[in-house]
């Protein structure tokens, strides 16, 4: 009886095993077919579907398909390039990137995400700090953009046709601007600005850099003498006001850094206290949430601080300007971090157009050749490019002539923070000269004297004023010697400069105008 029960069980077990094996054989076939279909289908899609050439999400041109030659195959370059091209231009790339970000969120507890290196908080040596904050440091090509655009560089980028200048440079600008801060820690999660998600870049700062910056500006004042007012305005960035408390210790105080700079002058430079003016309005939309720049409203309060210093009353931001908006702006902080919360919180980019009359002239930074007149606001920008609207980004030397009659001409030395600020000046000065510290390739002191400028303003954000490569630019323009050009070139430069001062208005002819 017992025995047969045992046997019965064994038989049952055997039967179950048999059934299982049979089913398992079916499973294996189905699985093989499924896997093969998946890789063949995916393979076909990857081979046949159109490949994107630019990524809107990251705002960059994707890797190009390399051409196959015997030479580059043997060197292995073809394979490297092709592999890069193949994965970089994958169809539905942006969708896949979004999926990947979403997957990354599932990897753990939603906690503050830092991107990049967190800058070492201010020290007195400065050395370990400034390496973390290259304002113009890493351009995609790996070379210093300061060098690229200097006049002695004969291999500088060939001139694009005038009509395309602005669009061309916009893209370049975008890439550069991201690179500017790409080595800093960015905090995204749990940062809120104006009730919405935001990113904030942590500030490092270095007293050594600050001192050097202050001393160089003092040198300008000394060289320019009493006839020219030299103003210096270092503006705080969003980290100063919007960094959540728990991250404070990763970020140095920009206020301290600015105070240090303002107390380190060796000549009669006039400090502009933009800090107080801006910090009184932190509940207003004065910084971009998804970008490392301020908003134009923030720039307005800096302008208000300047007005105070030169004894003027600024127009009212809410009533005296034409207020316009662009929807769907997602800026550089997103491009750098790819953080999905930023992408999902686009901002409304607001800009303020002065109502007064003015004309804007553009010149090549390298040759000072006239590019004709153009708009001050390039309003056809969209998406992540909105900040590039002012002055058509940084790439051209700009002069604005207003219809005021104050007898004052101002020259502004700036990096990209200055762009949003410049338009306000049309209500305060007869002529406004805009020089980007990173690109100008002339002796700035001589230039200022030659143009008969009465007021000089250095306008930089706290990061820039603490960054050696930018300060190098200020020094470069100060020490730049015509002697390094040959006599023919010097004559050319002088001729261009003369053209600018005397016949600026006449250069405005239809063939030569910067079109939108």
């Amino acid at each position, binding site marked *: 009886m017992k025995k047969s029960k045992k046997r019965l069980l064994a038989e049952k077990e055997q039967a179950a095993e048999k059934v299982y094996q049979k089913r398992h054989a079916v*499973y294996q076939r189905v699985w093989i077919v499924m*896997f093969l279909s998946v890789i063949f289908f995916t393979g076909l899609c990857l081979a046949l579907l159109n490949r994107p050439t630019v990524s809107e999400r990251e705002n960059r041109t994707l890797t190009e398909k390399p051409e196959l030659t015997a030479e580059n195959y043997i060197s292995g370059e073809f394979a490297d390039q092709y592999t890069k091209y193949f994965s970089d231009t994958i169809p539905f790339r942006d969708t896949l990137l979004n999926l990947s*970000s979403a997957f990354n969120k599932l990897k*753990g507890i939603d906690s503050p995400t830092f991107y990049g290196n967190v800058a070492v908080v201010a020290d007195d040596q400065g050395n370990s700090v400034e390496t973390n904050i290259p304002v113009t440091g890493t351009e995609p090509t790996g070379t210093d953009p300061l060098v690229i655009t200097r006049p002695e560089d004969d291999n500088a980028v060939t001139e694009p046709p005038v009509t395309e200048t602005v669009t061309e440079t916009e893209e370049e600008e975008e890439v550069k601007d991201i690179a500017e801060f790409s080595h800093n820690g960015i905090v995204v999660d749990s940062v809120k600005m104006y009730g919405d998600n935001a990113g904030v870049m942590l500030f490092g700062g270095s007293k050594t850099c600050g001192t050097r910056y202050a001393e160089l500006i003092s040198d300008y004042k000394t060289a320019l003498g009493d006839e020219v007012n030299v103003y210096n305005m270092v503006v705080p960035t969003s980290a100063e006001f919007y960094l959540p408390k728990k991250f404070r210790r990763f970020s140095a105080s920009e206020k301290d850094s600015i105070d240090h700079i303002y107390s380190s002058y060796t000549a009669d430079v006039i400090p502009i206290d933009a800090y107080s003016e801006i910090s009184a309005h932190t509940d207003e939309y004065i910084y971009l949430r998804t970008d490392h720049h301020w908003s134009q409203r923030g720039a307005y309060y800096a302008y208000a601080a300047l007005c105070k210093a030169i004894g003027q009353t600024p127009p009212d931001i809410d009533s005296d300007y034409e207020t316009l908006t662009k929807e769907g702006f997602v800026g550089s902080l997103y491009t750098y971090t790819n953080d999905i919360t930023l992408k999902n919180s686009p901002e409304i980019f607001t800009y303020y157009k002065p109502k007064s009359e003015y004309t804007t002239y553009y010149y090549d930074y390298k040759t000072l050749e006239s590019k004709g007149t153009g708009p001050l606001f390039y309003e056809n920008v969209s998406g992540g490019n909105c900040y590039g609207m002012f002055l058509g980004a940084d790439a051209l030397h700009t002069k604005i002539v207003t219809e005021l009659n104050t007898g004052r001409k101002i020259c502004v030395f700036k990096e990209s923070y200055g762009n949003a600020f410049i338009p306000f000046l049309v209500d305060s000065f007869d002529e406004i000269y805009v020089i980007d510290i990173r690109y100008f390739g002339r002796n700035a002191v001589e230039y200022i004297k030659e143009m008969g400028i009465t007021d000089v303003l250095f306008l930089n954000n706290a990061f820039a004023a603490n960054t050696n490569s930018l300060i190098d630019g200020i020094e470069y323009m100060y020490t730049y010697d015509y002697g390094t050009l040959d006599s023919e070139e010097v004559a050319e430069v002088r001729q261009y400069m003369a053209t600018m001062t005397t016949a600026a208005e006449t250069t405005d002819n239809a063939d030569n105008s910067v079109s939108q």
Partner: protein
Amino acid sequence: MVFSDIFFLFEFLPIFLVCYFAASKTPAKNIVLICFSLFFYSWGEPVWVCLLLFSSVFDYFNGRFIAEHKDEKKAVLGVIASCTVNLSILAVFKYSGMLVTGINGLLSLSLPVPDFHMPIGISFYTFQSITYVVDVYRGQARAQKKYLGYLLYLSMFFQLVAGPIVRYSAVSREIENRSVKIAEFSDGITRLIMGLGKKVLLANSMGAIADELLGFDGMPSSVLAAWAGVILYSLQLYFDFSGYSDMAIGMGLMCGFHFPENFNYPYISRSATEFWRRWHISLGSFFRDYLYIPLGGNRRHQLLNLAIVWFCTGLWHGASTNFILWGLYFGVLLIIEKKFLLKVLESLPKFVGHLYLIIAVIFGWMIFYFTDMSRMGACFSAMLGKNGTELTDLLTQSKLQSSLWLIMAAILLCTPVYKAVSDFGHRIAKNTKGGFAVVSAVKMIFLLGVLFLSFVSLSAGNYNAFLYFRF
């Protein structure tokens, strides 16, 4: 080319499979496999194909020579020639930079330091070549008559780049004749996807954080950062390397080859001795059978033999002092264990052994990670909490938190938990009504999910470092 690459997975592999199964008989399949392997190897570094071909021709003739002079004293010449040439190739392409720098330092000369771009997989195929010649000499394998047969053995793309180190005797019969069974093809796919997931989803994620935590200037930011960095690096190494081996073994199965296992849950070991029986098994057994035993093994000057073997094991992993240190570190541990520690550990509760091994391995990987001695020292003292390093810091906490689930999963997957789950599934499928359909569906969805996530992660261009380039 590497396996964790979209081009490989979705273009190279399908096209290869079509051609491979279009070829009817084994010899034709072999030709297909050779062509694809050479293309695979030449992708990126075509010049080094010549080196591979040279090595294969040379050892093919060595094999023939030994076979012809079987039982004569002359036969040993073939072995000597093969070892000399293969080791010289390794010395020149992998170690010449280190050697010259060393000589320069010792004799204060300034000889130009050669800067070869190390050919991929060179450490693996030169060793395989040696196993062939030695196996033939020992009579453990018959010399390959056809050159193509030998070239296939050496160049097979599954294991060419990162092992396992397959001995000639293990695959010699399959080179001549093999068949692919449906069950094995199916298992091979599963193995391939699991390996891919280990590499792309686990190893890459662990590696990205480990590099951030260990890529410090001067000092790690906290004790936590140093420990977490090294632990995550340990996880990365295991999943990277074993994932790659899984993929090789899986693709081998899909083509009818049976490669030996290379990893057997090394982190659950209870002694360094056991660890080395579970970690990179094909390398450990290579050194055992082709170096340790010929040197005399346990029989004479065992300590010296162990020292030599562990020096070489360390050196094999890279041309840098820290790898030698790392090898010797394990050599010392093994000797201590042999002398008395193993016995002591056996008398203690199990967890003591686990704890000891884990800590020993983690310190080992710390040595392995840092090629720069001063940074290694900084990490070491931070791990011990010296120099007033803070216990923890917000940044590290936030990094660990944001990958917490994945890290926990990775730690869990270092144990045979996957096997337990899969056995459990097997039981359910067999004994429960309707269980089979459910288990099969879950399995397929899981594997396809892993494939899909790996694809997404690779296409997003996430961190995808290739650790074997140094080996």
